[in-house]
């Protein structure tokens, strides 16, 4: 009976996977298999990282019952700062990265302070941030494209991990999955808790590990794991851990779920809200660094409309804009679906305007599915 219940709760997650597989199948057929080549999968992974990183942060923002419309501009501005520091001022890559992320944190702090401690709705503060940050970018860059970064900086967005390291990391990841599961089961036994059967628990892990290996193998047939994909994976894992396994993550869910009950349960709402925007700022800066590195330039229009793509990815992934529910995995899948549509339709030489229309339709469809499955 318990299994039945958990299956029911996951219907949505499965629907998302099924939708993704459907999209992949359609594009594979229409492109005569070109969509599924190692090369294109690698491209897809690279293309999704920027939106993916933003979506990871946006998930926690939306879970806490807030919204952030400024991430596109914040990404553009931090990317611009990185390029200015390196191209104009000649800083080395490590310091550029540190300074850029620090700038993201500061800007997040600024927005978070207005929202948490001055009680201005996040929608307003971040709408203002969207204008302010873009304005600052225009001002400090003088409207120019700042190009040609150091090879070291370019490696962040453009390099690939050597095959051996890719496989070693994958093996380490799988190993730690199993170790954590074994430890958790031991603890449960000690406390005499009911655990899932060995078969189910380890079976699931085996399936995940298998999928992981297939993906890595597939990508390795081309150039190996792209560096930005590694960054996205690490950030996603970190945030999955934060949301599921820390008191802070639990606080975010409860604040988004019921603000007043969270307050009366002794949760510091202001500090937690501030923190979520600081993290979002840091992640936007990471996304800015990746994009600048990939393009080898900072432009004044970099990241325009990305906030909407990120929000769309999160919503398609099943996170409710009302707050209180949502998962990182869902948002990553959402980002993957959005990117697949862009990628597949470009391969088919469909004009860009169709991509926008289709993505918009998918967004409505996803939310409609969500709402009707809850009834």
């Amino acid at each position, binding site marked *: 009976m*318990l299994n039945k*219940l*958990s299956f029911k709760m996951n219907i949505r997650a499965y629907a998302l996977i099924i939708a993704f597989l459907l999209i992949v199948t359609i594009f594979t057929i229409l492109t005569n298999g070109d969509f599924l080549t190692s090369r294109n999968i690698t491209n897809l992974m690279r293309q999704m990282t920027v939106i993916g990183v933003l979506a990871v942060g946006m998930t926690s923002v939306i879970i806490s019952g807030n919204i952030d419309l400024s991430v596109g501009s914040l990404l553009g501005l931090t990317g611009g700062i990185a390029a200015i520091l390196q191209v104009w001022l000649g800083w080395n890559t490590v310091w550029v990265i540190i300074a850029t992320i620090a700038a993201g944190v500061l800007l997040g702090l600024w927005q978070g302070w207005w929202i948490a401690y001055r009680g201005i709705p996040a929608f307003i503060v971040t709408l203002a941030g969207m204008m302010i940050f873009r304005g600052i970018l225009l001002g400090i860059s003088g409207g120019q494209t700042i190009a040609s970064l150091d090879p070291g900086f370019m490696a962040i967005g453009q390099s690939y991990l050597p095959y051996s390291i890719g496989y070693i990391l994958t093996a380490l990841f799988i190993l730690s999955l199993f170790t954590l599961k074994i430890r*958790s089961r031991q*603890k*449960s036994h000690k*406390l005499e*808790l009911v655990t899932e059967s060995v078969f189910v628990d380890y079976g699931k892990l085996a399936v995940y590990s298998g999928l992981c290996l297939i993906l890595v193998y597939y990508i390795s047939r081309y150039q190996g794991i792209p560096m930005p994909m590694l960054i996205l994976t690490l950030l996603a894992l970190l945030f999955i851990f934060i949301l599921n*396994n*820390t*008191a*802070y993550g*639990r*606080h975010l*869910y*409860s604040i988004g*779920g*019921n603000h*007043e*009950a*969270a*307050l*009366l*349960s*002794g*949760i*510091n709402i202001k500090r937690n809200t501030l923190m979520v925007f600081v993290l979002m700022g840091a992640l936007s800066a990471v996304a800015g660094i990746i994009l600048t590195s990939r393009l080898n330039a900072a432009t004044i229009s970099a990241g325009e409309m990305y906030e909407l793509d990120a929000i769309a990815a999160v919503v398609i992934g099943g996170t409710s804009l009302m707050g*209180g*529910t949502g998962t990182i995995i869902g948002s990553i899948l959402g980002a993957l679906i959005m990117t697949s549509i862009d990628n597949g339709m470009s391969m088919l030489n469909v004009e860009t305007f169709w991509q926008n229309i289709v993505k918009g339709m998918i967004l409505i469809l996803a939310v409609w599915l969500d709402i009707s499955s809850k009834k």
Partner: protein
Amino acid sequence: MSILHMNNISKSFPGVKALDNVNFKVDEGEIHALCGENGAGKSTLMKILSGVHPSDSHEGDVYIHDQKQHFESIRDSEAAGITIIYQELALVEELSVAENIFLGNEPVHNGMMDWNRMHDRTKRLLDYIGLTIPSNEKVKNLGVGRQQLIEIAKALEKQSSLIILDEPTAALAEGEVDILMSILEDLKSKGITCIYISHKLKEVLHIADSITILRDGKTIETIARSEADENRIIASMVGRELTELFPYQNNSTDHTILSVMEYSFLRKKDTDPMVYNISFELKKGEVLGIGGLMGSGRTELAMSLFGSYEGEASGSVYLNNEPVTLRSPKEAVGHGIGYVSEDRKRYGLVTGMDVSKNTTLSSLSHISWYGILNKEQEVFNTRQVTRKMGVKTPSLQTIVNKLSGGNQQKVVLSKWLLTSPDILILDEPTRGIDVGAKQEIYHLINELTSEGVAIIMITSELSELIGMSDRIMVMAEHTTAGEVNREDADQETIMKLATGGSVHAE
């Protein structure tokens, strides 16, 4: 002559048979009470009557004036003259009283709103129900009691011949209950029929002409008031007799844990203090009851002591003889205080979260290491405390919204038990929950006091206040009206104190 006859109604939800051949017959012009524990099927039966569950989703027939009805929606049942007033009120807070009364039914003149007629009708209705408020007052500025009366006015405007009141007095103070009772009597004399759903048997016995009792989705019996008494109703409701209604135990000690002196609290941006000049002491293992009418400042006192509001406190608060200032609930929790709110859905639970996560929400620091949760310990703690509390739930991963009111309340209590509090403030701990669950909560109070926990219990039910408290502080007009020891406590003394301050204000 029966106005309503529900014949052999059966209704199933996946996995549960909610109603099993229920028969329910109401005579025209009577007040008919419907009693039963939570989950007995009262709400489901009323949802069928009001068309929330459409007529093809259940077996059995509904007759109004001997005419068979097929209600597909609330609209259909309203057209047949039926209005339901729910426990959770359905008013638009930002709109005025008049706009609410005429919502969806606005008087129109040449396609324009006829404001004059609307306000004129509203004034008459307000007069009739005994409210002296302007018709353009926003509903959010009214207390729950007055909002309840507005709902009744709304039903009257719709010319309903059958009004169903679901727990109408759950949120009312004794004085407001009297007003409601007299209005119901008056409606009866005008030939309007009422179905009265309530857990409060005293009221039921006072007002109802006949009483139908449901248990486990079946009709147990329908009895006339003359044949009914409290014990018989309870026996029918629970299927057994409850020997001792209030299992009071004296566990109080001499050790003063909390002492409040000349305490006042002015909320930010308010001009008048929420509470002022309040002094009391709380001893280890004691139950201090706080009585008073709605709006006397009881909840405000509790919430401000708990640090829930931003504003300015004056006077002094001592915990274990140490002066403290509690600026946020977080600090209060840190000092071993817990607060169980009167409105559990709004202030107590994150309703979309599961039982386990709700239970550990206030004690995450006990199960985490540098902020990282020990999830196995979490399940262990939750399992232990929910078993102790007797929370009935399919699993610990069940969304808390799916539980019954009594079980939800037990989850809130479990949450605070896990913080191992020294002081627990219970604000209307038994509101809207059934007799059996009430008993369990009384026993829990005894268990806690025997372990040395001090309890502040705010309640509008006088019998509960008198039955469970060691000492009673009565509040009126935002300040202390007096203190009564258990031996001297009776209904008159308390009501006198509670209403004493308001004589000149009226």
